[in-house]
């Protein structure tokens, strides 16, 4: 019988220490959302490289919230340290002067303490041991996001993978990359109207750039407390580009416009490709120093690739480094979506505004594409305008896909890559503007 009662108490103990006992309904909602995101990543293959680690991080933090716990440092007396079964000699100490009454209240025996006389009053020197309890695994991995280290590293990898050839061949694509950033600034006004502070509004608006690393970088500078919801919103919308963009593109263009076949791009020489990153960095760093970390790393990666003399470094930036940072970034961004912190009206407002920003960016890009189509007498397909919202290369693929639905022999991919990579530079420039004005 005693065995059964012990077994029962073990089971009760396990239940009490498990997540089941402490989780609120918000955690269960977030776990359900994480399952939906995993389904989209695995079954539908919507940006699985991002969505899968995000969804998994979201799930695990809602089952075991302590995985994101901050490290805790406690100041304990010698007796307290010993009562915890720890050796006081292995912990750093700090000392403090207390009056006799204060020392007794703090649990010290005054007769055992060294005392000093200052100005005729007796003070007792007490010694505290600082015992630090380590934080959760994701807390440490998250520091790369929190300190704004991962976004520029991701940009290094993107730069090493990006071919700016289509943009150099057709520099007018920059206009479309700039147009798609208008959504950012319009959303900023919307967020102010809804009562967000200016720095919060800036962080929310940058979601419209559809560039996760840029959104994280801006938010870590302007309003770090919103990092979780903004990062999740930015990456989720990047992953959901195939669902969000096509209806807007079709709504704003005619069948005839979508069928436009664009001429072949001119070949770009190696020298032009090598000069490009240097020119961009020099110009952007001089005009907008706040955008220099992002644009600088993007162009450094690109210079590695185009120079052709540091193949090993370029390959590391494209593959190993990029993959490692993506794993850490994805899983820790997902882990910021803890149900109790995430399911609040403010967060839901951020996610709604982020979606509006993203839709506005797409719409502005397509509308400017229409203007360019009209100005060039039908030589530009307006669908490539939507690719101006960075999200490389998914947004360009969407332009290709929607164009091909109208005309299967139409290949817009390389034309859309121009505005797409211009969008990366444009969103980094917009980020620089937001940081320099709102910081």
């Amino acid at each position, binding site marked *: 019988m005693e065995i059964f009662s012990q077994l029962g108490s073990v089971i009760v103990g396990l239940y009490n220490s498990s997540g089941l006992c402490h989780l609120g309904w918000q955690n269960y909602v977030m776990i359900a959302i994480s399952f939906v995101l995993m389904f989209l990543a695995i079954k539908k293959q919507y940006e699985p490289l991002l969505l899968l680690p995000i969804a998994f991080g979201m799930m695990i933090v809602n089952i075991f919230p302590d995985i994101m716990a901050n490290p805790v440092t406690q100041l304990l007396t010698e007796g307290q340290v010993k009562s915890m079964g720890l050796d006081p000699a292995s912990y750093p100490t700090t000392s403090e002067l207390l009056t006799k009454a204060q020392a007794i209240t703090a649990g010290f025996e005054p007769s055992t303490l060294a005392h000093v006389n200052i100005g005729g009053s007796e003070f007792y020197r007490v010694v505290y041991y600082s015992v630090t309890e380590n934080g959760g695994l994701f807390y440490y991995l998250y520091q790369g996001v929190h300190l704004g280290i991962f976004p520029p590293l991701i940009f290094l990898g993107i730069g090493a993978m990006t071919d700016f050839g289509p943009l150099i061949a057709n520099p007018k694509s920059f206009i479309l990359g700039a147009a798609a950033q208008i959504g950012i600034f319009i959303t900023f006004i919307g967020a102010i109207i809804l009562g967000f502070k200016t720095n919060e509004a800036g962080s929310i608006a940058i979601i419209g750039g559809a560039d996760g690393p840029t959104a994280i970088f801006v938010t870590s500078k302007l309003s770090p407390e919103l990092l979780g919801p903004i990062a999740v919103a930015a990456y989720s919308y990047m992953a959901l580009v195939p669902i969000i963009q096509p209806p807007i593109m079709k709504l704003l263009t005619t069948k005839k416009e979508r069928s436009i076949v664009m001429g072949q791009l001119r070949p770009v020489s190696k020298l032009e490709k090598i000069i490009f990153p240097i020119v*961009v960095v020099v110009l952007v760093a001089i005009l907008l120093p706040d955008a220099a970390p992002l644009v600088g790393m993007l162009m450094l990666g690109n210079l590695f690739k185009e120079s052709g003399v540091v193949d090993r470094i370029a390959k590391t930036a494209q593959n190993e480094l990029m993959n490692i940072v993506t794993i850490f970034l994805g899983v820790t961004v997902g882990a910021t979506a803890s149900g109790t912190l995430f399911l609040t009206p403010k967060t839901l407002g951020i996610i709604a505004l982020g979606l509006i920003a993203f839709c506005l960016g797409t719409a502005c890009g397509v509308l400017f594409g229409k203007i360019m189509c009209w100005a060039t007498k039908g030589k530009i397909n307006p669908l490539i305008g939507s690719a101006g919202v960075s999200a490389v290369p998914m947004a360009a693929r969407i332009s290709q896909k929607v164009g091909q639905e109208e005309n299967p022999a139409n290949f817009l991919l390389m034309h859309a890559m121009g505005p797409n990579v211009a969008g990366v530079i444009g969103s980094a420039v917009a980020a620089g503007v937001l940081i320099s004005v709102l910081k």
Partner: protein
Amino acid sequence: MENMMLALSLLLAGFIIVFVVLILLIIIITVYGKIIQAAQRSSKTRKEKKKTADPVQSAAAAQHGSIGADVKAAASSEGTDEIPGEIIAVIAAAVDAVYGSKPHRVRSVKRSGTVRSAWGNAGVIGNTRPF
């Protein structure tokens, strides 16, 4: 009200700065692109002139029945001098592989236009179908 003024001024400033920076980039890229293209074109013609002026080289080329020289001359006469030399060499090698020992000569290399072949289309569709 103060925030609204800031928002409007940021909208205006952001719009202008982003466009100005990117338009500056357009101008710089267009200008240096043209300079590099012109420089590369002039160095190419200079090299070609040097080659035709060098009697030993042209004699050697004639002796070997050099495909590259023939094609280059044909390519420039057709106005397709944008096709890189490596591509022409690959095309010439492919022709040689097909014709083998039969007497043959590549006279010109032309782009086939924007319309791809069925095989080309199949390849591009295969590579651009992520979902």
